[in-house]
């Protein structure tokens, strides 16, 4: 496995905060959670009705899903297993092509 399988079970969430209150709630959630923001590049840039893509470690996916649900914040899972996508991006095809 690439990267020692470190991304197994990690997920990418897409969150679209629809009000300023939701923006603040999302920023608060990210302060309690070490996340890797894909878009925008920092929590300070999160805005109302703008897309937030965030990579979350496997141990925190349930926590984040539960808290988003409790706060009635709309979200979806863009990538449900990051390791699979990583392997698909470079692992399988290019190593076969290189061989």
């Amino acid at each position, binding site marked *: 496995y690439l*990267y020692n399988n470190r991304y197994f079970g990690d997920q990418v969430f897409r969150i679209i905060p629809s009000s300023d209150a939701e923006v603040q709630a999302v920023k608060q959630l990210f302060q309690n959670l070490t996340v*890797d923001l894909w878009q925008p*590049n*920092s929590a300070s840039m999160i805005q109302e009705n703008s897309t937030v893509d965030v*990579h979350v470690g496997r141990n925190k996916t349930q926590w984040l899903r539960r808290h988003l649900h409790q706060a009635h914040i709309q979200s979806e899972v863009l*990538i449900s297993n990051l390791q699979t996508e990583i392997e*698909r*991006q*470079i692992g399988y095809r290019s190593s076969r092509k290189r061989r």
Partner: protein
Amino acid sequence: SEIQYDYEVYHPLEEIQSWMFEMNRTHPHLVDLFSIGQSYEGRPLYVLQLGKRTRRFKKAVWIDCGVHAREWIGPAFCQWFVKEALNSYQHDSSIRRLMNQLDFYIMPVFNVDGYHYSWKTDRFWRKTRSKIPKYHCRGVDANRNWKVKWCDEGASLHPCDETYCGPFPESEPEVKAVAKFLRKHRKRVKAYISIHAYAQMLLYPYSYKYATIPNFNCVESAAQNAVSALYSAYGVRYRYGPASTTLYVSSGSSIDWAYKNGIPYAFAFELRDTGYFGFLLPEELINPTCTETMRAVKTIASGLLKKC
């Protein structure tokens, strides 16, 4: 040789560097490889100069890729651009005209340390790999480290943040080396293009404030023509406009620095996609993504040969 090199797979740093030497070796009349310095970890910062050799004055275009390590489609595009330019020179009159009348400086991997690290250790690494005294976190956002409104809104003072602006402007050897090169060649460089991902946008200054640049009409129409050309390939729509309003406010960015230093056309491309794959754009999409972007970049370059 060039025939075996597969432009439709992602390549690690060492393969890209070998490929650059091969381009230099096999196209001596159109290519010149040189280094503009070393990275924080001591890796060479290679640039390919493309264009027909001539004694007379030639305008120039700078294109860098891989400022942010995890945005792998960037370096893939820079390689694609070189391949298209060299392979089409004989039979494509538009490319031949561009290569005869312009010089292209292509930096396939700007953030060599970060790119290497994203292959070996952390696929989603973004920043450089410099150490920050008294902090365990590493790295500076190379697109917040330029000497223009440095560390103002849209950048972070905290070393552990992804948009950390660095201890001081041009603290990163990679940024310092490119800035030095562009300052030295500023009379000839008329377009600065930085390739990023993802969002499908074409951005121009200002990033650090909501204001219109003096040559807005020319830059806006160049951007409009570029996204139209891009759209003509596969119908992919790009938003375009000032970075501050189209994306968000950020300070210390390379396009603002380039513009402030006299380069009239400064653009940042955010390539495919809009988040379905994000940074993990599959290799099957390298071809269409680079094909459409090539059209946009050629349109920008062609615009330099006309009066605006």
